[in-house]
């Protein structure tokens, strides 16, 4: 939510509140504040701020109300900068750069590649890898009963060698894909619940591990 939108919402909210004030809603006289104030509510229907009736309706005051609601909302929704925080802490490798494709292509199959296309591809891919990093580094997200996370043995996904899969994995007694080994690690060293292959967390973990190994040649079966 950016500040412009917030401001618009505030103005709308205060307008609505003013309207409600004018309607014939009975107010319990004992609870009425001395100087009179109104409740300004955010569109999440939870976050509120009390605004005095005497407050001058200037842009500056409106901005203050908006900021107050924004700060409250951020405080009760701490995750909205998760991606930023994750990247700052763990520096996930960025996906391939496809900008060379801009302006190329034709016909209905791919169309002409636009900068927005390249941006979408990159953002979505990167986001999956960053989410994977957040799961990788969190015993809680992995469901660990013993507070162990993957990065304890694999800092920044070191020594995960995804290029060597599929291969015969002695710990599993059979040929394994990367996700099988991830699940083995989740079950045993991490002591969490194994993930279904299409679980968003599993897909994200694979994405992160592969992202960190970008550029290393495939070598399936390598011990």
């Amino acid at each position: 939510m950016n500040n412009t939108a917030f401001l618009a919402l505030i103005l709308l909210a205060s307008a609505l509140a003013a309207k409600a004030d004018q309607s014939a809603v009975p107010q319990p006289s004992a609870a009425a504040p001395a100087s009179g104030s109104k409740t300004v509510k955010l569109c999440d229907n939870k976050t509120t701020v009390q605004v005095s009736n005497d407050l001058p309706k200037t842009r500056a005051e409106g901005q203050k109300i908006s900021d107050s609601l924004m700060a409250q909302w951020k405080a009760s929704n701490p995750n909205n900068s998760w991606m930023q925080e994750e990247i700052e802490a763990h520096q996930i490798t960025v996906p391939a750069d496809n900008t060379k494709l801009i302006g190329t292509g034709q016909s209905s199959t791919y169309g002409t590649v636009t900068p927005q296309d390249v941006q979408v591809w990159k953002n979505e891919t990167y986001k999956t890898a960053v989410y994977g990093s957040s799961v990788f580094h969190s015993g809680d997200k992995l469901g660990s009963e013993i507070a162990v996370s993957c990065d304890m043995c694999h800092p920044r996904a070191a020594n995960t060698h995804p290029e060597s899969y599929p291969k015969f994995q002695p710990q599993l007694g059979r040929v394994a894909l990367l996700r099988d080994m991830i699940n083995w690690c989740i079950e045993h060293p991490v002591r969490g619940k194994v993930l279904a292959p299409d679980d968003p967390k599993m897909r994200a973990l694979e994405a992160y591990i592969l992202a960190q190994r970008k550029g290393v040649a495939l070598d399936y079966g390598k011990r």
Partner: protein
Amino acid sequence: MNRSGKMPHTKSVETRHVEEREELFRGLRNLDRRSFLKVSTGALAAAAAVGATNHFHSFLPVNVAYAAEGAALPGFTFAYISDSHLYVKKTNERFVRQLLRAVDDVNNLNPQPDFVFYGGDLAQLGRKEELDLGAQILKSIKAPLHMMVGEHDWYFDMGQRWNELFGPQNYSFDHKGVHFVVLMSVQEKDFWTARGMSPAERMHTVAGLDNAVQSAFEVGAPQREWLRKDLEKVPTSTPLIVFSHSPLYKLYRPWNFWTDDAEDVQALLQRFDRVTVLHGHTHQVLTNRIGNIQFHGMLSTAWPWPYAPQGLPPLTVQMNRPNPFDSNDGLGDGSVTVHADGLVDKLYNLWNRNPMQVKASYLSSGGKSDAPVAPTLASY
């Protein structure tokens, strides 16, 4: 052996065992009784020296090599345990079990070492309960105990509980002619105040090895000054052994295998004839030499780290890549034998594997002689 007294054409199993052993030990004399926690690579060197067959895995005491070469007998031995990263037992009993195993190892050494050194990171998240649990377990060590702090012990309460339990975080002492210095080498420039972090958040950030939000480790100017003063009275001929949690050199910044003011600290140590640094934090076999300073890592009891993608010192012979099924692989404890001349042989007591020994002569010769056995599987 057989009942008729004649040598059988096809030997029984047991006789073959005996003969195999005899072949190895032929030519070796005057073996001392030592603790079982001793070297196999020393044996290899000794066996090679007397022309015996190339048995990698025989088991001999450390000092055989010295007896054979006529060098001075070792001065003394101390043991170490490091990097236990304890949670309370109800959270994670595996790390508790592994620290107990290390204590069991050290208590079973025969003869007992002169003292036991704890290399830091006793707790995982710096909580009082974790530190207290570690203190309770370490109380059952029979030999005298010296403690060193790690970042996992410090950044929840900035060392308050550590100081209460174990005293000052940097100090020095002398033992049998060697000057020992224990540093707090995991100081970090304040990254938490500006971000408004709580103690738990600060600790959680530092606890992530690969978390880039934290600062690089350093000894810091005040402590360097303390070190300088401490060393002022020590003659250059006195052997120096420095304990540090961070490596006191710059290996790999993204994992804080790093001491930011390493060069300044090394400068303070350089005038001494024989300096050895023993460090924790890296959870692996690590060997380095910078100028006249010899560096050895200590094993962890909690989990092994892989080798860093860059910056590995060329003298390091890696330990074998750990098997994930074996939750003890790549872990252990160890001991350090200090020679009369003050240089050390470092023994890595890797659990469920043959021990690895890195000798002073290997480092002194720049890696030309006495190299440890290479691993079967190196890090990827």
